[in-house]
């Protein structure tokens, strides 16, 4: 703190004197110099990102941050998490307050192009659904005309909802809420008839209710919600690092590389793709400006995509999500990594 007081004061003095320092725009260099990755995460969504009792962030999105830290700094714990509400996340990324976002953010055209972000991939394919109390006697979203709907502000779900009701020529009354937990409470208290958000969050939410049987998730999925990590425009090398950190986790699952066997496989295997991934052959790490063991670090410290999924949101966790669309492409899902070559 004292050091930063001085730095802050020095900076202000420097600015006042009109001495503009040379802009070093490389995020990679900044992260390496700082020795810690600043990652923007959700302040609290079960399974995806939430602090545990000791204040350590855990979750499926958090694992992406940890993977990038492991790749860049060799230590998956060298992350400073910044909890961001949905309304401020892009501002925080654009201003440089965080180096990357892994905050269940939907990849859309305008967020990619107009807000000048670079989405580096998809770590969870979601879709928006509806949940209603059983007593409401509704079996399809088409019957929801005139309903009051709890909805998180500043999200794509808000816009999808408006689109869906317009297409189907129905009215609704929105009840805006700030966060996931808030929405859940309002819904349980009867402040709204319908709770709409990503289907994964609906499932997680319903599992925590006192009597889950009293509520049904309607069959309609009204939108595509590809959730993924993103960085700001203008630093392609940094974007590549985040993209291939995610891809390394995905490819590792496909090739059967896990946190348990990665070190052993790093001694060399018959499969050249695994060898290239783990840095036994080729110079993939150097091309990114990283150590050649970058992917090995990710896999030993964080694990592959499937492991992270099972640990945080899989069927054996309270969130209890099936792989579904998020299975590997070889098993009928959409999770697919370009080749490591």
């Amino acid at each position, binding site marked *: 703190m*004292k050091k930063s007081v001085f730095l802050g004061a020095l900076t202000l003095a420097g600015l006042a004197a009109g001495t503009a320092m040379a802009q*070093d725009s490389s995020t990679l260099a900044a992260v390496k110099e700082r020795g810690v990755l600043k990652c923007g995460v959700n302040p*609290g969504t079960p399974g995806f990102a939430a602090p545990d009792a000791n204040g350590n962030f855990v979750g499926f999105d958090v694992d992406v941050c940890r993977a990038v830290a492991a790749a860049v700094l060799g230590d998956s714990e060298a992350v400073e998490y910044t909890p961001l509400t949905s309304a*401020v996340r892009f501002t925080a990324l654009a201003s440089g307050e965080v180096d990357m976002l892994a905050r269940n953010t939907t990849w859309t055209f305008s967020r990619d192009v107009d807000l000048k972000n670079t989405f580096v991939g998809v770590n969870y394919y979601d879709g928006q659904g509806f949940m209603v109390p059983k007593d409401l006697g509704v079996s399809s979203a088409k019957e929801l005309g005139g309903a009051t709907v709890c909805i998180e502000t500043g999200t794509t779900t808000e816009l999808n909802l408006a689109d869906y009701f317009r297409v189907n020529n129905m009215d609704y009354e929105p009840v805006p809420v700030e966060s996931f*937990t808030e929405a*859940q409470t309002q819904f349980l208290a009867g402040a709204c008839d319908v709770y709409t958000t990503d289907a994964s969050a609906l499932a997680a939410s319903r599992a*925590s*209710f006192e009597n889950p049987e009293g509520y049904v998730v309607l069959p309609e999925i009204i939108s595509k919600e590809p959730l993924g990590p993103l960085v700001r425009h203008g630093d392609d090398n940094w974007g590549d690092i985040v993209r291939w950190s995610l891809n390394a986790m995905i490819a590792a699952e496909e090739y059967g590389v896990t946190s348990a066997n990665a070190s052993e496989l790093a001694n060399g295997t018959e499969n050249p793709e695994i060898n290239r991934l783990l840095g036994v052959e080729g110079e993939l790490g150097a091309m990114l400006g990283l150590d050649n063991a970058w992917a090995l670090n990710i896999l030993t410290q964080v694990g592959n995509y499937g492991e992270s999924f099972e640990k945080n949101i899989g069927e054996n966790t309270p969130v209890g999500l099936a792989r579904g669309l998020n299975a590997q492409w070889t098993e009928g899902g959409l999770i697919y990594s370009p080749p490591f070559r």
Partner: protein
Amino acid sequence: MSNTNSLSYVRKEMLEQQPAPRSQVGFTRWMRENLFSGWFNSILTIVSIFVIYKILAGTLPWLFGGVWDATSLEQCRTILNERFGNTHYACWAVLTERWNQLLYGFYPETEYWRANLAFFLMLAALAPVLFDKVPRKMLYLTMAFPFLLVWLVWGGAIWGVTSVAVGFVLGGVAFKLVDRFGSMALSAIAAVAVAVVWWLLIGPSVVEGLNSTLPLGHLEEVQSRDLGGFMICVIIGISGIALSLPIGIVLALGRQSDLFIVKTICVGFIEFIRGVPLITLLFTASLLLNYFLPPGTTFDLTLRVIIMVTLFSSAYMAEVIRGGLAALPKGQYEAADALGLDYWKAQRLIIMPQALKISIPGIVNTFIGLFKDTTLVMFIGIYDMLGLSNAIRANAAWNGIYWELFIFIGLVFWICCFAMSQYSQWLERKLRTDHR
């Protein structure tokens, strides 16, 4: 006259004094006069009693039948189902389980003693300021406390904060030295100049040297991100309160000044800050400041928040004190002039003591508002108690808990704010000098 004796009975002695009828004394009378003084009021009373009974019957079992010992909401519900057959009771176990987190945020558990020590030192440092019966020597502790707080809470070697303190001392010495020769303004400028030169040019290198050669009193460093809960509210609240009062006084005086530039700056600052919501200032501090800083600089988040909260409340404070200044009769100013006091002496001895006394309710109002506003830091990603309540509910074990956390947080804030309000009333009574 003759028929006087023909009266059959004349009382010869006084009657024993009887107690007043039951209906005219004590509780019965009070009830008759206040609760049942007519058919309409009687109906209102009965309806009110019924409503109060209903509310208490609904909440008291919930409050006092709650579970204090469980590790998750699920377990809470199981226990309640076994005990009562339903779950319409509170689950206070969330408080026992997350008690430390609500108080200290993510502060490292082995270092809690530092936070506790800082808290008790704070109470000791406040005592001589709040109560004039406390020995005056304790004011030295009050002066040292800000530096002790920073050292205890954030850790590191002791030299950094010492250097900042030395800057203040040097500034004070410069002020005294220059004060002999002439004007107040000149000595103030000299003091600031000396302090700034020390802080920016000499201090840092001295600190660096001492840190490497003599790392005295080194405590484990704690990052600002790890502060949270009630602790961060108190740190931000106390810093804001302690800093905004003097800044507010200076701004209020500046606004009344005859000097054009001073007056314009003060009015501009006050009107700008009052015209912007606090949450906007906090967003600027937490998200947009990086646009203005060169890449690679870090500017501690808690410090940014304290600065913004202080600026915000000092603008309000200035207006409250200006109200007190305006309420003083003009005769007081003229009397000070007639005594031959200069501007600063007049302010210190005559104007301010009266103006501040008049403004006490407004000042405390601003303090209470500031303390409650500290919960807004939740929106910029600092886990204060409200932010923690969200984080706790995002954990699978406690997902779905609601009232228990908010009742606790509400109670904590109520205690703090009620204490402030009681103190201000006591102070007002103590300082009342007029005859009533």
